[in-house]
């Protein structure tokens, strides 16, 4: 017994097992994604940079209220217009600002948005928001959220002004809470 133990210590089969694993991977296919040239497409639900559609927005402030860190600022005023002889009140968004540099991309604003399709959404697949200047460049006004000026969009993604639509968070409607 002692002899066999001695030889098992002398001949390191346990070490060879490890060498076999690493050696085996030596010639196998590599997992690296060569980033700027190769990109993995984010999934449909990926929470990326914000988009906003002022036409759909009903100015309900739910997104601002749902934001855990209060980075959505909305200023609005009421306008009255006559339709069929009735005076109707209509809320107009003056400012809709998102301070993206503080955003933690939880997506609660999008979930809170009551319009169909959503008026504010993050399913844009765009994630390259790095910038040399964070106070100006990462503060998005209503116009920039629409036009996506200076945003490095994911290839193939257009700005909301050019017709980007929110992704379909398939299945969100099946929740019991929504049904109630």
């Amino acid at each position, binding site marked *: 017994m002692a002899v066999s133990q001695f030889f098992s*210590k002398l001949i*390191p089969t*346990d*070490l060879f*097992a*490890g060498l*076999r*694993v*690493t050696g085996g991977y030596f010639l196998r296919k590599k*997992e690296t994604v060569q980033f700027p040239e190769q990109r993995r497409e*984010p*999934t*449909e*639900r*990926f*929470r990326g940079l914000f988009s906003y559609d002022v036409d759909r927005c009903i100015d309900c402030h739910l997104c601002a209220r*749902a*934001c*855990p860190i209060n980075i959505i600022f909305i200023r609005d005023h009421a306008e009255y217009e006559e339709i069929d002889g009735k005076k109707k009140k209509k809320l107009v968004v003056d400012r809709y600002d998102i301070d993206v540099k503080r955003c*933690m*991309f*939880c*997506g*609660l604003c999008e*979930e809170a948005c009551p319009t169909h399709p959503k008026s504010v959404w*993050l*399913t844009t697949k765009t994630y390259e928001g790095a910038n040399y200047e964070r106070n100006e460049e990462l503060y998005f006004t209503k116009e920039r959220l629409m036009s996506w000026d200076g945003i490095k969009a994911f290839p193939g993604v257009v700005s909301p002004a050019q017709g980007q639509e929110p992704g379909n*968070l*398939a*299945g*969100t409607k*099946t*929740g*019991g*809470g*929504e*049904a*109630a």
Partner: protein
Amino acid sequence: MMGGPLEPLFDVEEMELSFGPQHPSTHGVLRVMLKLDGEKIMDAKPIIGYLHRGTEKLFETEPFPQCIPHTDRLDYVAAATNNQGFVVTMEKLLGITIPPRAAYIRMILAELGRISSHLVWLATHAIDLGAITPFFYNFREREEILDLFEAYCGARLTLNTMRVGGVPFELPDGWVDQCSDFIDRFPKHVDEYEQLLTGNRIWKRRTIGIGVISAEEAIEMGLTGPPLRGSGVKWDIRKVFPYDHYDEIDFEIPVGSNGDTYDRYLVRMQEMRQSARIIRQCLDRLPEGPVMAKVPKVLRSPEGMVYASVEGPKGELGYFIVATPKGTTPYRCHVRPPSFINLQALPEMVQGLLVADLVAVIGTLDIVLGEIDR
């Protein structure tokens, strides 16, 4: 060190060494003040708080649903269990029963989170002990888990993927197949890690008998999770106080016997396999139905205090919520961070070991500073 205590031949001076907060193997911003005799650790004093963000104070200002993104940032390598802990506590406070499908989705996400947390642990633990390659294999698998998270909720790390009353989304098309494909392959990958490490004589010598803590001592120090199970206490919140639908799932609690670093390593390796088993069962039995319970639009709490805990990858992760009548925010929300309490045992575990063992013990406690400092 070998041998008994010898009288020093000449005057010895203790050396103070500030280990961290910027150090490759303190897993964040932990700082340990060491008193050394040569390389032997005479005393270790962890200094924490470099990552303190006042999360508990923040909870007091946030409406209940908006606390959930903040919980992501506690144990950021396993955000799903953090979410789960909070929503389970809230549901207990509000008396909500969640639909079974939601519970199963939650369990799948939590177990995926547990696997990814253990993968990060193994990667860093191995690197601490000098084996650099498992890191990349582990992160390859972790990447697949993060892909699954991304496909489900759109985020990879800070998931924000559970809500009071269920989960926010239905599973996307093809997700179940993608997940079950991964789960089928995963145990083979674990075999690979084990081939690299488990039998390796160097790995064994670096871990066996290092940082031993007995079962009584572990309970006395309040250890939970793998450090407690490594000492041989068969205790797992998923079995003891089953939340969601863990009581319907068949799985085992791996336990160690010696309470040393190697046992804790084995326990975590087994836990990964068990988690894969849980996910497999959940995927097979995934019930149909809604994913959200009927909850009021604005959550208003009854007066009282509740505590509920989940088995996080690091140990018992508990949330304690004090609620005021008709309150919309927690009056006080306290987190029981497993790493914080596990770290407390560090000085006792490293007493008399060498500096090289300190990194092994820090690694085996599997701490996350985001959770310790909150």
